[in-house]
């Protein structure tokens, strides 16, 4: 048992050896003064400081604020994007109406219209969540639309032929067949949401991990800057991994389950 575990850990280490190598080089370069610790605090210092901030300062509050904004915007994007994508794929007038609109707004870098959102909604939660929503909406709606468009029509016909109601076809045929595409779009949406929430907090400030980064930068407190970046990176990595595990569960029946 222990041997097996050790073997698995060993395999994991070799698979990710370059990541560990980077972390070790980071630690040594700072410890031995190759780079001034102010410019690159040792990895262990950053981890220690993170722990300290969690215990004695309100880092937990800032982290949860960031996560709250991210998931609020992302859920809204799913709630709007998935039905809209399916509707566009199944209903011609909906496609004719929304497709040009999405084509026009998709290539616009949304960070460029963030000031308008701030002007209209203020600097607090609402503008940040709206930006997360807008930016993560696009990959989700486009992937859903694309996926729902390519559902095998024979599946729908045979379900209809067997007297299945339209509502049930939607839930039992179209939605499952579109699920792999939805999840691909959602993964992109998660990554975009993470970037956007951090940027919005860096720009409009107040609280959250992005604000910690900017606040530390203004005070030239370099360790705290690294705390913010390490924390958002670890969060991103964990969320992405959890998502991949969930996808594997959801798509067990599907050939794409093992991708990524």
């Amino acid at each position, binding site marked *: 048992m222990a041997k097996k575990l050790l073997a698995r850990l060993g395999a994991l280490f070799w*698979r*990710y*050896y*370059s*990541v560990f190598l*980077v972390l070790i080089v980071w630690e040594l370069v700072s410890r031995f003064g190759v780079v001034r610790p102010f*410019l690159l605090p040792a990895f262990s210092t950053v981890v220690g400081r993170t722990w300290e901030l969690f215990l004695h300062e309100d880092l937990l509050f800032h982290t949860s604020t960031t996560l709250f904004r991210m998931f609020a915007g992302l859920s809204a994007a799913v709630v709007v994007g998935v039905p809209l994508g399916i509707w566009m794929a199944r209903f011609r*007038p909906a496609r*004719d*109406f*929304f497709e*040009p*609109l999405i084509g*026009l707004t*998709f*290539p*616009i*870098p949304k*960070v*460029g*219209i963030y*000031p*308008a959102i*701030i*002007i*209209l909604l203020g600097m607090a939660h609402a503008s940040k969540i709206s930006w997360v929503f807008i930016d993560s909406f696009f990959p989700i709606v486009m992937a859903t639309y694309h996926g729902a468009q390519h559902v095998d029509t024979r599946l729908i016909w045979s379900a209809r032929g067997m007297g299945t109601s339209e509502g049930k076809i939607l839930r039992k045929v179209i939605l499952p067949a579109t699920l792999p595409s939805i999840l691909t779009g959602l993964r992109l949406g*998660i*990554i975009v949401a*993470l*970037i956007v929430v*951090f*940027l919005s907090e*860096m*720009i409009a400030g107040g609280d959250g991990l*992005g604000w910690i*980064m*900017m606040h*530390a*930068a203004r005070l*030239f407190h*370099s360790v705290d*800057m*690294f705390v*913010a*970046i390490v924390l*958002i*990176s670890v969060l*991103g*990595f964990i*969320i*992405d991994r959890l998502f991949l595990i969930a996808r594997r569960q959801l798509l067990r029946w599907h050939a794409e389950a093992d991708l990524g």
Partner: protein
Amino acid sequence: MPRFLSIALVFALWEALPRAGILPAETFPPFSTVVATTSQLFLTGEMWPHLFSSMYRWAVAFVISLAFGIPAGIAMARLSAVRNFLDPILTATYPVPKAALIPIIMLWLGAGDLSKILVIILGTSIPLVISAFHGAQGVEKKLVWSALAMGTDRRLALFKVILPAALPDILSGVRMALSVSLIALLGSEMIARQSGLGYLLFSSLDVKAYDLSYATMLVIAIMGFAFDWGFVALMGRSLVWMEREEGSDG
């Protein structure tokens, strides 16, 4: 339904809502006002230096990213040592917001062009590396083998077989890189505020010169749009040979 009804509707609402006083015109000026301000800024010459400094940073960073990212991705696909080294690092850093690195890179390199260009390169090269890697990895081995068996030397096989076969993937990576590069450009300019569109965007917001903010937003929107359309047009031309084989699924 007419094809561009929705777009016409959006612009009509943008014009009508502030004019009718439903939205306050100072904080949400009508479309025609924004267009007028924007053209004014171009005519007086106020916009040009910012546009130029943004485009300069973007162009330098994008060219470097192309020159580095695509070969790195192909090397990952062809050489297992490169793949074993880079793949875990890319997987681990993929969900990391690169824009978050801006303050740290500024700590290292100062607030000038160098750190901004580096941030754009970091963000832009990753989609390029990943797409070139996937593209080159998906190249049918038989194609490469038969080219080699017919006496093509390895370097020629790279340019004549692998690169063309990986091109569709690479190009979709370029499209993604285009949008990422604009985000990194604007992000870096609005955090290290000296010049450029990102600077103009937020310094005008700070002094409540909203008409200037909206004009800058319009310029940025047009830029993003022009990049994407330019790219699609270019791609349509360069991938004619592919359409014929794969149907319309591109």
